[in-house]
């Protein structure tokens, strides 16, 4: 087969695989898991009526969103109002392109063995691409808040943008430590580095904590969900949204959650690798996908667990934590990692 054609087919297959797992299998059931998890923590049954254990609840919700009325408020800016959910959703879905979700799979077709690396696009800018797309998602929130022409929406949008840019700084600088150790911005290189060295979460514990907490702020999850803050802002930036446009914000938020978990696993917890396992060949490749999925799932559960356990921050506390604590600490983590690499005698 023509290698170019093969690459194209492999790329499409990988995109479809990732989206099938994330969109079709994970997202709807994640909402159910969140609600059942909340019920577990709050000692109540949760949604358990639709199908066995409430498993069809997600399906029912999606159908409901399609059947609801899609309306645009009269005072809203029509173009931006319609565009905002798309700006939120599309970057959230394309973040997965640079995250390696497994080692590689050898495939023999017509006597020729092709090796398919399990990553959609192995670009040399790697993490910069992720940060660029996360920043684009902010526009979705701000435009939604502004274009709705509603006081609650505007407040939620502005709050959220200030929060996300504040924590993006600490997050970016904390991640720099990882790239300093790996010597590359490519995420597969980070995983390779962690195969031969300690996982980054051990020497860079400080950076890891900063990154994880900032990820909570970036995805607008409790204890940092001041963009919504239903007690004061009704529903925050999506107060005026209904039907599937609301559904897109909802799905975008969960897609961001999955992407953030996958990113934490890749940067700090060895990605698809396990210490002492070679993971070669067809079965090794499949096993690596499984390992990656289990690790990612642990962090998704952490997000849910924290959301239903901690109370919400006050806005001044949120800003103080981001600027006064995380920013200097992330720079400290960077210097510490640099010192470790130079003085560690080749161990780091």
């Amino acid at each position, binding site marked *: 087969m023509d290698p170019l054609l093969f690459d194209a087919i492999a*790329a499409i297959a*990988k*995109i479809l695989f990732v989206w099938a797992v994330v969109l079709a299998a994970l997202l709807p059931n994640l909402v159910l898991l969140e609600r059942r998890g909340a019920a577990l923590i709050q000692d109540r049954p949760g949604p358990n009526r639709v199908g066995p254990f409430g498993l069809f609840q997600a399906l029912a919700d999606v159908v409901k969103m*399609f*059947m*609801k*009325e*899609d309306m*645009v*408020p*009269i*005072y809203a800016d029509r173009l931006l109002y*319609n565009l905002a*959910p*798309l700006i939120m*959703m*599309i970057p959230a*879905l*394309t973040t997965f*392109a640079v995250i390696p979700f497994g080692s590689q799979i050898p495939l023999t077709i017509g006597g020729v063995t092709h090796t398919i690396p399990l990553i*959609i*696009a*192995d*670009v040399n800018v790697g993490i910069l691409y992720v940060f660029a797309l996360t920043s684009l998602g902010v526009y979705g929130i701000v435009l939604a808040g*502004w274009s709705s*022409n*509603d*006081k609650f929406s*505007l407040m939620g949008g502005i709050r959220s*943008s*200030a929060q996300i*840019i*504040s924590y*993006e*700084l600490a997050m*970016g*600088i904390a991640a*720099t*430590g990882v*790239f*300093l150790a790996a*010597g*590359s911005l490519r995420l597969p290189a980070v995983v390779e580095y962690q195969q031969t060295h300690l996982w980054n979460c051990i020497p860079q514990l400080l950076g890891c904590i900063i990154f994880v907490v900032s990820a909570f702020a970036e995805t607008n999850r409790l204890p940092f969900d001041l963009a919504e803050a239903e007690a004061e802002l*009704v529903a925050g930036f999506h*107060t*005026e949204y209904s*039907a*599937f*446009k609301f559904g*897109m914000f909802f799905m975008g938020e969960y897609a961001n959650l999955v992407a953030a978990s996958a990113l934490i696993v890749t940067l700090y917890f060895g990605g698809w690798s396990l210490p002492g396992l070679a993971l070669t060949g067809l079965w090794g490749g499949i096993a690596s996908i499984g390992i990656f999925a289990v690790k990612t799932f642990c962090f998704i559960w952490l997000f849910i667990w924290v959301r239903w356990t901690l109370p919400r921050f006050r806005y*001044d506390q949120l*800003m*103080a934590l981001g600027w006064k604590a995380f*920013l*200097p600490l992330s720079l400290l983590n*960077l*210097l510490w990692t*640099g010192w470790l*690499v*130079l003085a560690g005698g080749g161990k780091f």
Partner: protein
Amino acid sequence: MGTSEAFLPILLMLVIAAVVAVALLLLNALLGRKVRTKRKLGPYESGLPLLDVSRKRISVKFFIVAMMFIIFDVEAAFLYPWAVVFRKGGWPMFGEMVLFLGVLFLGFAYLWKKGAFDWE
């Protein structure tokens, strides 16, 4: 793969995502109910009639945060290339960054003392 070819799958992904997202919105517009009333289309105001304009002035604090973000983000942009080639540079490179971060820290301390990080 450092060439632009490596970005083709991303372009493909963006196109598919955009097409699917727009298709879903259109489907919703087709399937959804259409009962429009003036009350329903008005902005949400906790049940009260709309009293004044919604786009009011925003606290200056948010603008200060935006300015500080620009300053520190530019500095973060300097850190990335430094981090990638750090292993080739060794101690001299470490010293340079300590100097750079030292100057940056002076600015940070100044901002802190001026109260730019306080939300009160």
